[in-house]
């Protein structure tokens, strides 16, 4: 692939850049990085087998750069792909390091090209499939299937979904049981927040957070843990709203809270 080594990002044609720009507008419309790469590869106007992966990597990185410039937030998998393509690019441009393990840049590029070709192949196949004559649209089954009414025999039937859902219903009933039970050992942040709101009015002075644990929640370990977590989350929320102040002497020391004197 030495002939592509000289490739520079400037070499990207104007139309390709315009295309990349247009792509950004509807990045939502893409089904992930591979789909985007496939679309970008079409701007090369060559057979997918002859595609320049290096050029494609440039295009993609250019795309991501542009998106960043326009402050468009790309999903993580787009960024992962960008990082990988940057890595691939360096492998393709630099002479191979004999001490390095793993597949060569060419191997990686070949696989990417294969993936793109395969995806395109599947899309074409899907289009051909959907273009076929279809039952109930282009050709038809018997309109009056039950012609003769002679013997009436009742049979019972069920399909696979019924079966699996039936099983799931039973099994998740089991799974659900401890959840329903444990509900009364769980305190939500909302509950804690409601309670704390009423109490902080009295917290003019630094008070230990643990003293806010509701009655009946201090001894049982499960309940205590849940209430502590809920209370802690609630105090953070209250602090964020500027209702209280927090302090902690050192790591693992008790957390203390105090009402914020709002004289404003």
């Amino acid at each position: 692939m030495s002939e592509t080594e000289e490739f520079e990002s400037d070499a990207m044609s104007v139309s390709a850049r315009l295309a990349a720009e247009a792509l950004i507008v509807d990045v939502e419309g893409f089904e992930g990085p591979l789909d985007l790469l496939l679309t970008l590869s079409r701007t090369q106007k060559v057979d997918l087998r002859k595609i320049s992966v290096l050029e494609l990597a440039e295009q993609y990185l250019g795309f991501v750069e542009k998106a960043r410039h326009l402050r468009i937030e790309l999903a993580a998998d787009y960024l992962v792909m960008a990082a990988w393509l940057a890595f691939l690019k360096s492998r393709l441009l630099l002479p191979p390091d004999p001490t390095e393990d793993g597949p060569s840049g060419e191997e990686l590029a070949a696989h990417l090209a294969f993936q793109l070709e395969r995806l395109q192949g599947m899309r074409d196949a899907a289009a051909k499939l959907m273009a076929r004559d279809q039952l109930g649209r282009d050709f038809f089954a018997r309109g009056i299937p039950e012609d003769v009414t002679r013997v009436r025999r009742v049979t019972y039937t069920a399909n696979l979904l019924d079966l699996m859902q039936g099983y799931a219903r039973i099994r998740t009933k089991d799974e659900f049981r401890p959840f329903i039970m444990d509900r009364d050992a769980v305190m939500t942040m909302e509950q804690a927040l409601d309670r704390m709101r009423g109490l902080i009015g009295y917290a003019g002075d630094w008070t230990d957070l643990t003293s806010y644990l509701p009655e009946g929640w201090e001894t049982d370990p499960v309940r205590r843990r849940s209430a502590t977590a809920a209370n802690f989350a609630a105090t953070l929320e209250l602090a964020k709203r500027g209702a209280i102040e927090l302090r902690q002497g050192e790591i693992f020391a008790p957390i203390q809270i105090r009402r914020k004197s709002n004289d404003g």
Partner: protein
Amino acid sequence: MTDDVTRDDVAAEDHAGKGNDSLFEAPPMGEQERMVEAILFASAEPVTVKELEARMPHGSDAAEALVYLRKRYEGRGVSVVKVGDAWAIRTAPDLGYLMQKETVETRKLSRAAIETLAIIAYHQPVTRAEIEEIRGVSVSRGTIDQLIEMEWIRFGRRRMTPGRPVTFVVTSEFLDHFGLESARDLPGLKELRSAGLLESRPPPGAMPGPETEDEDESPEGQSELFED
């Protein structure tokens, strides 16, 4: 219902629309016959000559096509018959006895039966007591009988435990019906969930489950309470 209409009867019906010979030539009669054949076959109701012509290219003569079609089906396994003033394709009366299967009435299996069947499929070989334990309710005799009669389950080996209870397993008819190659191909709970076949639930990690350090829990005893 008369079957023996003549060419004249049929022809009388169609003269109404025939006056205005059109710009477009009607397709050849052989083609028209094919069209009538297809329409009669696919329609859920008998079709009148008027309706046929409304669906065929302008200038078609459905009545004439019907004459040819009827002739073609004479003595065949099905025939073109007149129902009131409409036409339909029906099985030849002498072959009615072959149609018994077509008149089977199918009903959905009851929930109890489906659940019992599902447990047998997933846990086979399984005893009746085990089914009851999993379902949390007793299994009526009728349910098991019904499934055996449908040939979806059968008796397996006796369990080598006290009382030597019989077990149940699913049959090859069951696999056939549900399009499975073996009962082991049934998806597990996790797979059901990831395929979107289960309603979403909080992931197990999100709920405080029984933990080893919390020695004062007795999950078994408690879950017993919730058995319904």
